[in-house]
C-alpha cells in the first residue's frame, strides 16, 4: 500500500483541476446568460420605442398640456411590459457561484463580478473575501481597475484595505501597480483636491504613486499616476507637444510629429 499516498495525491490534484476547469466554465456560462438577458431586454425596449404608438405618446408627453400626464403613464405601461434584469437577482446567482467554489481560485471571478456590479448587497462582503482570501490571485486584475469608482459605492476605507491586501500579497507587477494607483487615488484625487489632504496623507499618496510607477513603469496605472506631473512639465502652453505614436482605425502606424509643418487641432474624442 506504499503507493496509496501518491494515488490519493493524484486524485486530489485531479479533482482540483476538474473543479478549476468547471468553475471557469460555470462562470463563463453565467456571464453569457447575463449578457444575453441584458441584450434581449435592450432589444425589446428598443422595439417598443420604435413603434408609432410610443412615438405618438412621447410627443404628447412632451407637450406639457392637459393630456401629457396621461401620456406619460401610458408610456410607462408600454415599457413596463418588458422586465428589466434586476442586478439584485443576478447577484444571487453570482453569489451562489462564489459560495460553490468558496476558498478556491475559481471563486474569484464571481467575487470580482459582485464587487464591480452595482445595485445589490453583496459588493462589500465580496471585497472583504477578496482581501482576506484571494489577494494573491491573478483574477483580481479586473477589480483593481475599479478602485476609484468603488470608493463611492463601498467606502474609501474598504477600498484601501483591499488595495493594501493586494499590494502585500500579489506578485504580479501590473496588478500591484494598479493597486498602488488605486490606493493613491484613494487618498484624494490626483488633481484639484490636494488641499483637503493633511501632510501625512500627502506623503502616503506620493509614496504610493512612486511605488506604482516603480512596480510596472509601462502600465496604464503608472501612466495615470504620472499624468499630473506630465501635464505640469510637458503639456503647458508654449511647450513642444510630446509625440504620440499609435495606429489609426485601419491599423496603420503614424506619429503626431508626422504633421509638423501644419497647424494641428488635437481632439480627444469618442462617439458617445
Amino acid at each position, binding site marked *: 500500500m506504499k503507493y496509496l499516498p501518491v494515488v490519493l495525491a493524484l486524485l486530489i490534484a485531479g479533482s482540483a483541476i476538474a473543479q478549476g476547469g468547471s468553475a471557469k466554465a460555470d462562470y463563463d456560462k453565467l456571464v453569457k446568460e447575463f449578457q444575453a438577458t441584458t441584450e434581449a431586454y435592450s432589444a425589446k425596449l428598443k422595439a417598443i420605442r420604435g413603434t408609432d404608438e410610443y412615438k405618438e405618446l412621447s410627443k404628447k408627453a412632451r407637450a406639457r398640456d392637459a393630456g401629457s400626464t396621461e401620456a406619460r403613464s401610458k408610456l410607462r405601461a408600454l415599457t413596463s411590459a418588458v422586465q428589466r434584469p434586476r442586478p439584485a437577482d443576478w447577484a444571487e446567482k453570482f453569489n451562489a457561484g462564489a459560495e460553490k467554489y468558496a476558498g478556491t481560485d475559481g471563486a474569484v471571478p464571481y467575487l470580482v463580478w459582485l464587487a464591480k456590479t452595482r445595485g445589490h448587497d453583496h459588493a462589500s462582503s465580496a471585497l472583504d473575501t477578496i482581501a482576506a482570501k484571494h489577494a494573491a490571485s491573478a483574477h483580481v486584475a479586473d477589480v483593481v481597475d475599479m478602485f476609484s469608482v468603488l470608493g463611492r459605492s463601498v467606502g474609501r476605507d474598504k477600498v484601501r484595505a483591499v488595495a493594501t491586501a493586494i499590494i502585500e500579497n500579489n506578485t504580479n507587477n501590473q496588478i500591484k501597480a494598479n493597486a498602488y494607483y488605486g490606493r493613491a487615488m484613494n487618498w484624494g484625487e490626483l488633481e484639484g483636491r490636494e488641499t483637503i489632504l493633511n501632510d501625512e496623507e500627502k506623503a502616503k499618496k506620493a509614496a504610493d504613486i512612486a511605488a506604482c510607477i516603480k512596480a510596472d513603469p509601462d502600465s496604464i496605472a503608472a501612466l495615470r499616476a504620472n499624468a499630473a506631473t506630465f501635464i505640469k512639465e510637458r503639456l503647458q502652453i508654449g511647450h513642444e507637444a510630446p509625440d504620440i505614436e499609435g495606429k489609426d482605425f485601419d491599423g496603420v502606424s503614424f506619429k503626431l510629429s508626422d504633421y509638423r509643418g501644419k497647424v494641428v*487641432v*488635437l481632439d*480627444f474624442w469618442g462617439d458617445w
Partner: protein
Amino acid sequence: MYPHERSLVKRLANKPFALIGINSDKDLAKLRPRLKEENISWRSFWNGPKGTGGPISAKWGVRGWPTIYILDHKGVIRFKGPRGEKMDKAVDQLLEEMGTSGN
C-alpha cells in the same frame, strides 16, 4: 460637434492644417459604421480596447471628452480647450502667423 469639425476640415482642406483625433471608443466594430454615417474623414489614433482607460489618454491625463489641444506648425502647444468659434479663431490666428490666412 461633428458638423463643426466637418466644416473646419472642409474650409481648410487646402491649408497646412490637420485635425488629428485620439479616439476612445472601446469597440471599433461599432464605431466603423458611425464613421461613414457622420462622414468622419479625419485621421485618429485609436486609444485601444480599454476606451477612455487607454494608454494615450492615461499618459496625457485626459479626464473629460472632448479635450482639445491646438499646436502651431512647429508642434508647440498654443491653445488648450477652445471649441466652436474659438477653435476657428485660434486655428486662423496660427495659420496667419505662418503667412497662410484661413480665409
